[in-house]
């Protein structure tokens, strides 16, 4: 029995429900040798900033139990180089592309949105507000409803009208539903959740923080229960808001947990480091799982965990 796995994130129609997670798939090109990147829902790019950025010193990662911690520091060559080389390649390749953007302050987010307005072939924008606000003591935008909403409103103001905007939330908050409400109020069409958890690993030899950046982001299957809980809470509070779920997805079963919790689509991140063909493999596994549960479409399974058994 064929299963309809098409889905949507607000206005963004997707033929398939599995996407790459920002920062875990480069600009798509690196993974194309391992699977057909046009066969998944979309490629979400590494977060793009206005200017080239060197990122943090090494070591930038440590393996942790069923996860990893990273402090890459948003390394990238800046929006102009991205548009000229990476986005151009993605368009030529025919991959649906969601551009993740990150700024050091509210205005930079707006400038990024305005710049993207002038280019073709962008399916949507993911707003990475889980980065520090240089203008405000490095406080992470996503950790406060006010700053989170400010960024989203600024992007909405400058982005191409009608382009789907996903606000990416951080789990490092007391009340993620409050943040979700704020960014939707501010004009986001949907939510991407979750970003990494703030963590630290102490080097067993030097007894000092292992990462060049001292703290880093925890990701991978270790955090999956936190991510599923966050998606479940937000979907319960605002069932009409589309959610791109992520956090530790390694198999189709994991992906289905997020769909059942209320996600309309999912992103795969750290699992790619373990298996570069993970996104398409997981999409195929998810399709089989949905069929095995007797659903004829993915849509029928979205949020089912909230309905009485």
């Amino acid at each position, binding site marked *: 029995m064929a299963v309809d796995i098409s889905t949507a994130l607000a206005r963004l129609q997707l033929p398939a429900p599995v996407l790459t997670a920002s*920062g*875990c*798939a*480069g600009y798509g090109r*690196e*993974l194309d*040798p*391992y699977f057909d990147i046009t066969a998944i829902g979309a490629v979400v790019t*590494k977060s793009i900033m206005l*200017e*080239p*950025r*060197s*990122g*943090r*010193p*090494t*070591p*930038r*990662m440590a*393996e942790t*139990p*069923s*996860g*990893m911690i*990273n*402090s*890459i*520091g*948003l*390394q*990238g*060559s*800046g929006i102009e180089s991205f548009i000229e080389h990476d986005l151009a390649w993605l368009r030529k390749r025919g991959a649906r592309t969601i551009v993740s953007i*990150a700024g*050091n302050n509210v205005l930079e987010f707006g400038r990024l949105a305005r710049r993207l307005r002038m280019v073709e072939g962008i399916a949507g924008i993911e707003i990475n507000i889980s*980065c*520090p606000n*240089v203008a405000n003591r*490095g406080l992470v935008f996503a950790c406060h409803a006010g700053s989170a909403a400010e960024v989203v409103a600024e992007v909405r103001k400058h982005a191409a009208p009608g382009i789907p905007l996903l606000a990416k939330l951080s789990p490092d908050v007391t009340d993620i539903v409050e943040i979700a409400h704020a960014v939707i109020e501010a004009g986001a069409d949907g939510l991407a959740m979750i970003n*990494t958890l703030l963590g630290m690993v102490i080097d067993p030899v030097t007894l000092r923080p292992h990462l*060049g*950046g001292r703290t*880093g*982001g925890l990701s*991978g*299957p270790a955090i999956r229960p936190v991510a599923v809980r966050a998606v479940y809470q937000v979907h319960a509070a605002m069932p009409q808001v589309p959610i791109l779920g992520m956090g530790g997805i390694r198999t189709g079963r994991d992906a289905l947990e997020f769909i059942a919790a209320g996600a309309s689509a999912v992103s795969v991140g*750290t*699992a*790619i*480091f*373990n*298996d*570069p*063909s993970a996104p398409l493999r997981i999409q195929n596994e998810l399709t089989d799982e949905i069929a095995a549960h007797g659903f004829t479409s993915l849509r029928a399974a979205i949020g089912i965990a909230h309905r009485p058994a």
Partner: protein
Amino acid sequence: MSQFRARLAANRAVGEYRHLVFITSAEIGPVRPGHFAALAVGGPDSAMLLRRAFSIHRAHAKTSAGTSIELIVSAKGPGTKWLVAQPEGTVVDMVAPLGKPFQLPKQAVPCVLVAGGYGAAPMIALAEELRSRGCRVDVVVGASTESKLYGVLDLKRMADSITVTTDDGTQGFQGLVSDVLPDVMRRADSAVVYACGPMGMLRAVSKVAASTGAIAQCAVEEAMACGVGVCMTCVLPVIGDDGVTRMVRSCTDGPVFRGDRVRWDAVGTVPDDALGAPTSAGH
């Protein structure tokens, strides 16, 4: 570069290392000296997610059994300990060949190969390749102690000269490869230095090469999470053709770099003049 399953066909001790032979029926691209393989470790219920990278020691194209890929593995942490403990028959997920291999000279110029510890793994195939091109091949192999030397006999067979060093003097000269390298290069009039080993060694070798005007080809070893270019963890500061220093990925732009292009003193940092430095916080 392709991803495939490979069966462990042999696992034997060589000094303090294990020589692992994997067989795969998959079609894999041509393997050149300096290419590496990235393996998933620990099995399906393992707490270890990240890939482990190993220089490809040898790869033999399609035998009846399939293609064989040989690695020389030093048990360091949990992943390599798991790997060397596997019985024959264990099937692992492998991605190979990865990275940019050693660049070979167009002319038959004298070359010197410098290896530290398991850094000798790719050198035997490289020596063969260079000999087949008519290059003179001198070899310097070093390690902290005798049991951590690898490939001395194989290399001796192929090299015009071989010099062995150990930090503790248990074999050959007591000292570092960089102590004996200048003499070797003077005697052989080496035009190219190929090096694989710890960062400190590569840095010293590059210095020696620079002083003699030889080209240094260094295979670096930076901590890697994915091996395929998507995680950005394996970067080091490298000077581009435009003279600009960038933090480049050693898994895709390397692991082999020209010694005079790597900012050895700045490895583990982001030099102030690197493109996009200094970083503000944020991951």
